[in-house]
């Protein structure tokens, strides 16, 4: 039972790898696919990717740990990416942070992102690829509650 589960897991990993093996510089597309499917790129995935691409584990780990997007452990909670770059600072995002953290109370992971390209209508946030702008304390609280 456990064996068949882990072989299914490996089959999904291998599918993500083989989708991009024919392209030039396939590592980032592979890592994106693995993270989209499993929520993270763990040690097992790192080994499997390294073997498939004839890289050392250190090389793959080096890439995974370099980029902010890639995580080695999955985040179980919903993720709200809040822009805290200069344009959103100018529109008051810093005053919203403490309240948002308190409202989320550990139920939603509030992560900092530097710029969503919505700099004229901030403060802005992204949840699962959907963007939200003109946030104030109330609208941000509503977004958090909708996820929690």
């Amino acid at each position, binding site marked *: 039972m456990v064996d068949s589960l882990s072989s299914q897991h490996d089959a999904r990993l291998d599918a993500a790898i083989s989708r991009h093996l024919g392209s030039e*510089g396939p590592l980032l597309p592979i890592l994106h696919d693995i993270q989209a499917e499993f929520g993270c790129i763990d040690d097992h995935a790192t080994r499997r990717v390294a073997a498939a691409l004839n890289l050392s584990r250190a090389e793959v780990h080096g890439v995974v740990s370099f980029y902010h997007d890639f995580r080695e452990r999955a985040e179980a909670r919903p993720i709200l990416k809040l822009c805290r770059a200069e344009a959103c600072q100018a529109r008051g995002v810093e005053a919203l942070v403490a309240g948002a953290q308190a409202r989320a109370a550990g139920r939603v992971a509030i992560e900092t992102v530097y710029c969503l390209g919505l700099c*004229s209508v901030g403060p802005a946030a992204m949840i699962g690829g959907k963007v939200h702008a003109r946030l104030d304390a109330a609208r941000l609280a509503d977004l958090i509650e909708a996820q929690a």
Partner: protein
Amino acid sequence: MKVRISDDAVALACGAEALAAAFVQHGAEVERVSSWGMHWLEPLVEIDGMGFGPASVDDVAAIMAGNAGALAIGPIAEHPFIAGQQRLTFARAGRTRPLSLDDYAATGGWKGLERARAIGPAATVDEVMASGLRGRGGAGFPTGIKWRTVAAAPGACKYIVCNADEGDSGTFADRMLMEGDPYCLIEGMAIAAHAIGAETGYIYVRSEYPHAVRKLEAAIAASRAIVAPVVLHVRVGAGAYVCGEETSLLNSLEGKRGEVRAKPPLPAIEGLFGRPTAVNNVLTLAAISHILADGADVYAAYGMGRSRGTKPIQLAGNIRHGGLYEVAFGITLGELVNGVGGGTASGRPVRAVQVGGPLGAYFPPALFDTPFDYEAFAAADGLIGHGGVVVFDDTVDMARQARFAFDFCAAESCGKCTPCRIGATRGRETIDKVLAGGDPAAQLALVADLCETMKFGSLCALGGFTPYPVMSAITHFPEDFAAEQVAAE
């Protein structure tokens, strides 16, 4: 009744999806178009050329009944914000459906590519040279010279790479172009590939732009036959600001850590996978389509000094009329902020304006007569960069902004060179010491010395330009770094 509503990310973030659905529910035909770039009016509703915005679901019935007077802005194309612009790169903004090949061809699309093919690679490079076009990503390097170098470099395999890693806060023109007029970028890349002798192109888009990624993928699929034999691919970044630096971007495309490479060798000689590579910004390549279609002289007729053509400027932050403003070089910062932008959104006085992203200088209103021009900004110890203008009102604490600049550099440094890797962290600590109040003059002298080292010792612009926001904050707003001000808080 036909209703036009943008599907640009700004419109979506302001509720365009629900608004469009409500119009459909009320029996209207809804057409999704690109954004006009008047972001304070988004979601903007267009009916027979007349605009209504910002509209919400609650306004639908009134707009359709013709009594939404408070939201009516009149004919959109004649709105002062639009009428005052010289839109070449963004000529289609608001006017076409982003993925419609018919709309693209009907508005002059593919004419530049046809002409490039007709006149041949060498004459295409000459045309770009004659236009005076300089890289719109921020560095301002002459595009024609870059292309000539790649074209002359030995090797059968060359690449065209589009830098769409638009990470600067206060900038969104690349995003708007990719979402609103993707074929314009594709045509520019096809022309570039033709000119330099490349058959493969990569568009490296940041992961924070999922809408742009989807639009580009669809547009590449739909235009494959038109740009053949050139083959284009979209590659998605992974949240590293430094990958906007071209050599770091190339490493990332190769599947490596996005660390900066030492130059030389230039990417034009040894770029992607060691092959000759032209790396150009989205707006540079989009301008190419226009330059080849209408001629270099038309483009070069705009601008001032050695800054030829138009610059898509992005008005952002605490500004009343934020959005995309494409205009010939030469407009002053004050005209942009107070005239076009209408001052702050908060209604409070403007105190500082950061131009050129997180690595750009903060300008006080005293310098608002600075014209938008590469050389004029350099002379004022600033940079125009990618053309982002972020406005702050008088509640801003400039010491905090200087500290943030170091913080940002520390968070995003690739770690390759010491001035950036160590300097960012030491800089933030030293600003903290200034704010703690012990001999601020001595600490500020240390900051100035550190900035000197970072500016001249860093491998790329991340460490090299972080001194711009820091030193401009200290120079123009010294009162925010005084110990007594801190003690009073």
